[in-house]
């Protein structure tokens, strides 16, 4: 009980924060928004996975990755490959010169399914791949960099370049990947139509529950000794090393976990939006994810979810009215956050939250309710005494 309350929920304040977020995502938004808007929120929440992963990696670990889009994309592509194969049965693709393979392969004169597509016929394999492919990829990158003690700015630049390389690779290998258009026209998941209204609701809630699961997982990691070691490494890496820890192993592990978390978001993105393309892999989305985390507060698992929602709503609103201005605004927002409120929304809440909470607590109606409860309790105690 103590373990769950103190460590996973983060004590009283953490539990309240989580409950408020849960009420917003699971009750308020589904009731208040129409399905189109709710689906948009669902899409934003998949980015929140990447933002949460950056809390671990960047906020606590001090390792800035400008390539979380890579893992988001890999997760998304794994899921998209499965869905695409299911959508490309011989019946549906009988007008192609080679029926039974995805349409873009046919357009690129492929006559056979490439070997690495074949395992994605299996749903079980796909689920494993969503988790494992990005983690293994992160392990390879992490191992080769952290064991050589590459860090800081160099790490950020290299991850950014990896994002660029992967985009170029996906765009260039059209026949295998669907190229710049990505993998589109996804229809069913094991025969279940993912495009109709009820499945959109179901996917939204699955996504929300996964997000909360991931937040709890992160809480578990951050409240363990591992979490304190992350902070210690960020602060004084040498002291940790000369206290008997193999620092690189810790960095590799946290990088793999953050890759896995982003990938889950990517897979949920594919399911909810119905396609995956290189525009969610490259440099721009990767940096956007960092901005979500910065705006929300990179030390707060809950804050970054709000950050992601706020920035994305802003993006949708502004880009509907002033599409050219948005990128500049986003840049300005990032600079403003870094310069004036480095702990983001979570930091502002910590600083000014009391000013909002205390008046509410002191409102007449609340205090009269409190009084009522208190007097009832007293009466009960009296009764039991007698």
């Amino acid at each position: 009980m103590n373990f769950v309350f103190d460590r996973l929920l983060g004590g009283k304040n953490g539990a309240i924060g989580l409950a408020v977020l849960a009420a917003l995502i699971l009750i308020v938004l589904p009731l208040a928004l129409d399905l189109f808007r709710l689906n948009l929120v669902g899409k934003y929440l998949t980015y929140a996975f990447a933002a949460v992963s950056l809390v671990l990696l960047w906020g606590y670990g001090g390792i800035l990755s400008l390539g979380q889009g890579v893992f988001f994309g890999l997760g998304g592509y794994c899921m998209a490959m499965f869905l695409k194969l299911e959508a490309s049965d011989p019946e549906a693709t009988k007008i192609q010169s080679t029926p039974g393979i995805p349409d873009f392969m046919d357009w690129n004169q492929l006559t056979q399914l490439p070997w690495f597509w074949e395992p994605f016929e299996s749903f079980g394999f796909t689920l494993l791949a969503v988790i494992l492919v990005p983690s293994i990829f992160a392990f390879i990158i992490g191992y080769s960099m952290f064991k050589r003690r590459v860090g800081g700015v160099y790490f950020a630049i290299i991850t950014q370049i990896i994002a660029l390389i992967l985009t170029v690779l996906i765009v260039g290998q059209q026949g295998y990947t669907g190229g710049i258009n990505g993998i589109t026209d996804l229809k069913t998941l094991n025969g279940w139509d993912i495009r109709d209204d009820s499945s959109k609701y179901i996917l939204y809630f699955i996504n929300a529950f996964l997000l909360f699961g991931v937040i709890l997982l992160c809480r578990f990691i951050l409240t363990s000794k591992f979490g304190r070691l992350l902070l210690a490494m960020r602060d004084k890496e040498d002291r940790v090393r000369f206290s008997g820890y193999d620092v690189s192993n810790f960095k590799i592990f946290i990088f793999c976990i953050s890759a896995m978390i982003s990938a889950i978001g990517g897979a949920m993105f594919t399911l909810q939006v119905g396609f995956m393309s290189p525009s969610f892999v490259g440099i721009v989305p990767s940096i956007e994810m960092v901005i979500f985390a910065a705006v929300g507060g990179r030390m707060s698992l809950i804050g970054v979810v709000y950050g992601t929602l706020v920035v994305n709503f802003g993006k949708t609103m502004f880009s509907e009215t002033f599409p050219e201005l948005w990128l500049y605004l986003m840049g300005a927002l990032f600079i403003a956050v870094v310069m004036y409120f480095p702990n983001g929304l979570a930091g502002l809440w910590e600083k000014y939250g009391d000013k909002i909470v205390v008046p509410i607590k002191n409102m007449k109606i609340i205090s009269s309710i409190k009084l009522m409860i208190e007097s009832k309790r007293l009466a009960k105690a009296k009764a039991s005494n007698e």
Partner: protein
Amino acid sequence: MSNTDFTLAIEDLTVSFDGFKAVDSLNLYLDKDELRVVIGPNGAGKTTVLDLICGKTKSTSGSIKFKNKELTKLAEHEIVHAGVGRKFQTPSIYENLSVYDNLEVSFPRGRSVFGSLAFKCDEEVDSRIREVAKDIFLEEFLEMESALLSHGQKQWLEIGMLLIQEPELLMLDEPVAGMSVKERELTAELLNRICMGRSVLVIEHDMEFVEKIAHKVTVLHQGKILAEGDMQTVQNDPNVIEVYLGH
């Protein structure tokens, strides 16, 4: 190299940076229960010797044997596991953690990735933390954020972070730098207490302090040993007077 009875046996140790020999065929032996102070002018190679022992710098040639185990081939964390602890010149503590957490993180259990995830701060850990905190005069500051400690207290905390690992060789780089007179006295007492059952290697400039703690003094000059012996002998050595104390 042959095996010896010494806790630490450094033989023919050399490190050269682009031809400059910061440490030049150094021989140094340290006994159990011994507190050795290394002194020497700036650039004599004192800190480099500590760097070499703890693996921060790799030697060019020579051997460092700790309990007859060759250290020069080991990674930094393996050297720590072998029982070597090192305090840095500027206090290296985790400023954004509490004093308690600083000590807990240094407790020698749960040192692997998964070990640290499963680590529980149980009775044993807690009592050890309190014991060490008492040793380093910080028992009343356990809950304080360590950034708020005074400079001297930070030095103590770092020593405590090493003590909790119960190292058999403790290396301290200028432990009393920035300390008040009172703090220096307490530190001298602390060092005299903790050299029991282990070997301690201290680099220090403050001669008054050296006199209080040193069993034996080694004077380094240009990467070589200039003199070695008790404080009296070293202070009267004409070579030492010329290069160091005479200034």
